[in-house]
């Protein structure tokens, strides 16, 4: 009985997450970007893995939809890379949430990541390879990205 309840809860959570992604698809479709059903399943797995790896818990509404919506109008995001790039951004997002010690809201972080992404012509490496300090400093001071970006391999070592 208990197992059945937990199973139905798990299913409900999965369904809720997929519904969120379908909602995000409606918006990103305007910019020529869409996740396939298979892509959504993959993204669900990537998100769970990122949460576990970065030691975070997310119940209810997920940040993934906000990330998708925050990046979908970027001129550097292309349909052929969309699913892979989104997975990497989701992983980076949860990494930075920990790194900032809860000092940045989801929206602030997504905006900072987006600015970095665009400033480096859609380079995910520029986003994930930067330090949080550089990410936030650039945002706060409107710093020139070419000067501010130094490869930070601390993320890669995680």
């Amino acid at each position, binding site marked *: 009985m*208990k197992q059945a*309840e*937990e199973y*139905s*809860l*798990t299913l409900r*959570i*999965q369904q809720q997450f997929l519904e969120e992604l379908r909602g995000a698809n409606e918006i990103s479709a305007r910019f020529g970007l869409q996740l396939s059903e298979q892509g959504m399943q993959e993204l*669900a*797995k990537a998100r*769970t*893995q990122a*949460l*576990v790896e970065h*030691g*975070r*818990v*997310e*119940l*209810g*509404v*997920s*940040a993934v939809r*906000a990330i998708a919506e925050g990046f979908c109008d970027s001129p550097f995001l292309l349909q052929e890379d969309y699913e892979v790039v989104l997975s990497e951004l989701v992983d980076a997002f*949860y990494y930075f*949430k*920990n790194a900032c010690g*809860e000092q940045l*809201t*989801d*929206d602030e972080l997504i905006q900072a990541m987006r600015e970095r992404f665009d400033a480096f012509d859609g380079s995910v490496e520029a986003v994930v390879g930067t330090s949080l300090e550089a990410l936030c400093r650039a945002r706060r001071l409107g710093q020139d990205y070419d000067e501010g970006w130094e490869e930070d391999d601390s993320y890669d070592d995680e």
Partner: protein
Amino acid sequence: MTTNEALLPILPEAAAAVEQPEAIYALLEERIRRFTMGDSTSVPVETARRLLEGILYCLDLNIRFPSVEVPATAPLKDRWQAGVSAAKRISQRAKLLYLQVQRTPPPLVNTAYCDTMEALPAFFAAYDADFFAQEIPCSFDYPLCQPVSDSLLGAEYIKDFLRRLLAENSFLRALPREALLALYERFYVDYADLLVNLYLPAAEMVSLCALAGEPVFALSLPQEKLVSVSRLLTLSGEQEAHKRMLDAVERALLALSLRGDFLVRYTMQTAEDLLVRLRAASRAKETDGEGS
């Protein structure tokens, strides 16, 4: 793997066995949303664990201190909310106890006692029954003679600590300052700076004085009396020694004009502990004697 599966390691088995996972999940989700004030959809596992422990603690509080308005069959959120209210009430009572302890200090204090009294207000300032009712957000180190049970959490722990401290202080206030000072200097040497309890030597000496038929206010016994009292306790049968000790405590408390069920029980427990130690020491001595 789903988020729910990621959450499983932080969900205590006991709670999972009693409450509906769906209801716990929904309440935790709501608490996380409130905690982050909508700024973040996720929190570190450690924060989620603390929030979950807070929920489960409040549910348990509501079982132990049932609210008249909220029956056991009420929805989980109502029972949790009643538990939060209970935690807040306990915290209020603890605060009153703190003020009472502050008004009635023992005749002599030491550094650990003063530091603890200075540290406790931090608890009342930082205690957050809405999110982390199970936590004790301050640190203090004055050792009680009869420590608070580790099973108590949050405001319950602080309230019980203060209740015990108040009982110890009442006992010490019934004794002359000079006699206490002389006792501490004999017993601890540096009572002021050591991390020691002030009540223990006084309670033990009062019990021994009463057993010896000496005035309890003196807090001192000649060596020969001390030896004879110890022999009396160790040579008697266990039940008889126990009775003698408790009778002596009753006489002592009467002489000190001290009443109150809790204080009586507290002092009797201290005397019983002394009896156990004396008898164990005597047995060890006998064994050593046989061995050599």
